[in-house]
């Protein structure tokens, strides 16, 4: 505890000092940004979709910035640990975060004790990609459309699997339940993998999953996709309707965006946003993003700020309605 306190105090002091320095000697230092390697904190364990997007982007941004962008996985507490680390880092642009819908909309709404403020503690850099989620069922489930599933859920008790309590997939399911007016039991897992296993093995009939992780099973027919969660159909699966076609207004997706700590000089933020934009414009990166079924946005900082505000506003009633909260 004490050690942590002193570290925070030290960080705060350093941060204050740097800010003073930055104010007095404004731009010369920033003109050379970056003059050393940049750490991109990924707030999840290696191997997930956020990690993949992060590693592809980091690789390409390194070329543009002329400095290595090093990926550091700081997993734990649903992304809160990594996000907190960046929120408390020096605001110089050398420590940035691969934020997600979890770190910048859901966790702050769900957690009773808020380790960071998603708006006040961060300088938005760029909204990189949107990733659709999918509602899928085991092929034996007697429902071929979203409407048939809703009818089935009204007739008999059903359960759906998600990657965990309070994850975007769980809340996509909760939003679905409240809009369709049905009750389906939520079964949380530790990640998408085990949840998928149980649905493929017919232990649980329904799953809400990221489209990239479920897509292989959908194309091979081991899972029946009933709807994607985005407002529009996904180009990867033009035959799968959007859930919104049955439940007007239903729209959820996961997203990945770069954030720097609040107080990072605007020139540095712009430089990072430009590098991100250049990375996402690379056809090779675009090709890789397409394999994750991710839609490229590559926004500017202001658009990301608006996006975060919109997402918080959208999820707040869902989180309250589903009565999800964590300490």
């Amino acid at each position, binding site marked *: 505890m004490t050690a942590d306190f002193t570290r925070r105090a030290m960080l705060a002091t350093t941060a204050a000092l740097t800010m003073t320095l930055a104010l007095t000697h404004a731009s010369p230092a920033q003109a050379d940004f970056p003059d050393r390697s940049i750490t991109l904190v990924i707030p999840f364990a290696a*191997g997930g979709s956020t990690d993949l997007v992060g*590693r592809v982007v980091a*690789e390409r941004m390194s070329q543009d910035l002329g400095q290595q962008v090093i990926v550091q996985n700081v*997993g734990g507490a649903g992304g809160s640990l990594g996000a907190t680390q960046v929120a408390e880092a020096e605001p110089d642009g050398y420590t940035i975060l691969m934020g997600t819908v979890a770190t910048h909309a859901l966790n702050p709404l769900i957690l009773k004790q808020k380790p960071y403020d998603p708006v006040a503690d961060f300088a938005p850099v760029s909204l990189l990609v949107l990733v659709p989620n999918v509602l899928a069922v085991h092929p034996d489930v007697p429902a071929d459309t979203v409407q048939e599933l809703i009818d089935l859920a009204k007739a008999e008790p059903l359960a759906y699997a998600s990657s965990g309590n309070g994850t975007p997939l769980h809340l996509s399911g909760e939003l679905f339940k409240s809009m369709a007016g049905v009750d389906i039991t939520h079964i949380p897992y530790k990640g998408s993998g085990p949840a998928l*296993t149980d649905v*493929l093995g017919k232990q649980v009939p329904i799953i809400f999953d990221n489209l990239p992780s479920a897509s292989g099973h959908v194309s091979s027919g081991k899972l029946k996709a009933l709807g994607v969660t985005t407002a529009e159909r996904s180009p990867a699966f033009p035959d799968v309707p959007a859930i919104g076609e049955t439940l007007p207004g239903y729209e959820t997706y996961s997203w990945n965006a770069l954030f720097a700590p609040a107080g990072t000089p605007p020139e540095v933020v712009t430089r990072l946003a430009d590098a991100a934009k250049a990375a996402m414009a690379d056809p090779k990166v675009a090709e890789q993003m397409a*394999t994750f079924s991710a839609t490229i946005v590559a926004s500017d900082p202001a658009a990301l700020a608006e996006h975060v505000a919109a997402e918080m506003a959208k999820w707040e009633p869902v989180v309250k309605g589903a009565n999800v909260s964590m*300490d």
Partner: protein
Amino acid sequence: MEFLSNLALGFSVASSLENLTFCLIGVLLGTLIGVLPGIGATATIAMLLPITFQLEPVSSLIMLAGIYYGAQYGGSTTAILINMPGESSSAVTAIDGYQMARKGRAGIALAVAAIGSFFAGTVSTFLVALFAPLLTTVALKFGSAEYFSLMVLGLIMSVALAHGSVLKALAMVVLGLLLGMVGSDIYDGTPRFTMGITAYADGLNFVAVAVGVFGIAEILRNLEDEHDRQVLTSHVGRLWPTREDFRAIVGPVLRGTGLGSVLGILPGGGAILASFASYTVEKKLSKNPGEFGHGAIAGVAGPESANNAGAQTSFIPLLTLGIPANPVMALMIGAMIIQGIVPGPNVASEQPGLFWGIIASMWIGNLMLVVLNLPLIGLWVKLLKVPYFILFPIIMAMCSIGVYSVASNTWDLYAVAFFGLLGYVMGKLRFEPAPLLLGFVLGPLLEEHLRRALILSRGDAATFINRPISLTLLLLAVGVLVLVFLPAIRKSRDEVFTESEG
């Protein structure tokens, strides 16, 4: 025979000069990181992922797979030589392997580990090729009720078979179960026993606990006892096992291979479970169970074969279903996606060269490992000759770096220190760390599956006996209990986890 033509295709892909080179790089790197305590395959593969973008998909996956099973080999080396399990699955090897090293049989222990691993690797490679589709169906039949019953059987076998200080073994299992409770409740997110530290919200890190109770505790014990500095046995003894040694390891290797192959398919720490299970079985079947904990060769051969077989067969759910059995497999999926291959049941039919090439490369990699490691043993044992005012700090630093690299979490390091002290105190009081680790591994799984099975059955506990596989496992568990408490058998009960005298 479709199987043979598939394997032939695989070998033709895997034996191209380029792929052989990447396989060699992978296994060398894997052995190296396995030897460094704490630096795991997960961290290494994650760091290498970006480099693999430039490679052919099959080469990059062959290299990454090589790192994974190379690390399994290397991990046992440090477990035997300095009582530091380099990989969590070699924690069990440390028990008897290190005792063998202390008795001057380090060379034989290392050779037995290598031979057992190679045999298990060979068998399970063919199992993967032959049975992948079939085994996957079996794994899918395992729902939460079945997993729960399997864990119950595992715990009962390990505890009920113990005797002597049964109480101490039980206490350690229970402490392990409790430690496994640390972290967020996965069903409602309530933090438990985290003392308000967010860094423990996902539970204690297994590597941190294992390195603490085995490794750090060992260093403390050695520092304390000036006259009995045994961490560094100066003589390694002969390398090649004798005829008797071979006779003694045939059974354990065969049984370990079988156990490992089956458990490896199940998602969630299959290889770790396999090594624990094999150790328990060997001790149960041994004619001199008292030897276990004091350098029983079967205690090295069985678990080593089991964890290598498990490492191999954990590729089955990955390759056939696209489902990761452990974090390393999750990274492999990442590597596949980056290469534009969507993991899943289609990989075998759409990319037969890739699918069978990886399988064939596993066997080639295992061969490389045994050829490399037998001569390298000489090099590794030179470690033993390094004076320990140099070696101890290096080991401590390596452990810390390794543990930190898992999640960049400072609190994991505090956990290493705490469990190092706990392990030291436990050693003084003659409590064994192995049952504690078993409880720690099984506890969270036991709870997760118990609760999920009950949610799915809407609170009906009959689900455990209505499902045939679950019922069978529970009946086996009851059978074990009955056997143990029959007086006649009670006499011949063996010590399973009570290898005191440290």
